[in-house]
């Protein structure tokens, strides 16, 4: 079914079309939200909000962009709203706060690989540190970097989602990587892991 056809069906409230849309874009939306939120439970909650909004605002979709671009925009906005509303929560710690924690405490979410506990702990610490470093990036750099890294989107696709020029996106991602490297280098010098 064409994109226009899907939207037409959604406008009519067709449940089958909605179910197809969810199964097509579920992974993409959850992955995008996960890239910004770093928690699978939160990402699934926000992804549900995204699909509810897609269903309700289908009538307002003019078809100027691709459905995926529109859904990406909603997913990014919803995730940022979620971060804003839950800023004080435990999950969103700054890099400085994390590097202050004793090393054993930062490894509270072991991977379930069943492998070496030491390597699990190290991976867990790495994961927390890199998430904190990403969270500390300026908003636009964080969005561009996450879309590029987690969704493997091209700079052109990111520029369409963020309504920016191609050169702005290139610059954002370049600066995001430089900032990330700086933060990781500081952490490396402090021997966080």
């Amino acid at each position, binding site marked *: 079914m064409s994109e226009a056809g899907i939207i037409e069906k959604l406008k009519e409230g067709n449940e089958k079309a909605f179910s197809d849309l969810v199964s097509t874009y579920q992974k993409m939306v959850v992955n995008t939200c996960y890239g910004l939120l770093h928690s699978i439970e939160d990402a699934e909650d926000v992804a549900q909000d995204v699909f509810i909004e897609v269903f309700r605002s289908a009538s307002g979709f003019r078809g100027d962009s691709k459905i995926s671009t529109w859904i990406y925009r909603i997913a990014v906005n919803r995730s940022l709203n979620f971060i804003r509303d839950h800023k004080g929560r435990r999950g969103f710690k700054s890099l400085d706060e994390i590097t202050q924690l004793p090393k054993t405490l930062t490894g509270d979410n072991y991977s379930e690989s069943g492998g070496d506990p030491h390597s699990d702990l190290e991976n867990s610490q790495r994961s927390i540190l890199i998430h904190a470093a990403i969270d500390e990036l300026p908003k636009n750099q964080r969005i561009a970097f996450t879309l590029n890294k987690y969704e493997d989107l091209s700079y052109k696709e990111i520029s369409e989602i963020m309504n920016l020029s191609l050169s702005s996106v290139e610059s954002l991602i370049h600066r995001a990587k*430089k900032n990330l490297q700086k933060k990781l280098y500081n952490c490396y010098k402090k021997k966080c892991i």
Partner: protein
Amino acid sequence: MNCKAIHKKLIFFLENDLPLNEMEEIRLHLAGCQECAAFADYMKKSLSVLDQERNPDVNPFFYTRLKARMENQAIKETVTPLWARILQPAVFTLLLLAGVYAGIKIGQPAKINIQESYYAEQEMFPYLYEMAAEPIETFLME
């Protein structure tokens, strides 16, 4: 290239974002510099976390939960129709304003018309000062 320059470009090297000649230069430097190689390894491991995290498992109950949530929201909307959702806060606001107004009115001191009350005060005077007119000593003597 010195170590400082290598550190600045390391992330781009790891992501294959550099021209071939610079890639080769960094590769040669890393082969000979233990400190830079250690940092490169640290960066590589940190960035690989993101690659591992990509595409988390799809929850098979996602659509079921989504439908349940949409139905719950629809029920809530039918239980409290739009007019009720607007009228309820309006009524509460009016009640609150009425309460505040009543409170202000009760709290204001009563205004006394001095000219009228002057005579009343005069009339009341003997009663108010009854004890002066009939002191307690006289009363006890009797």
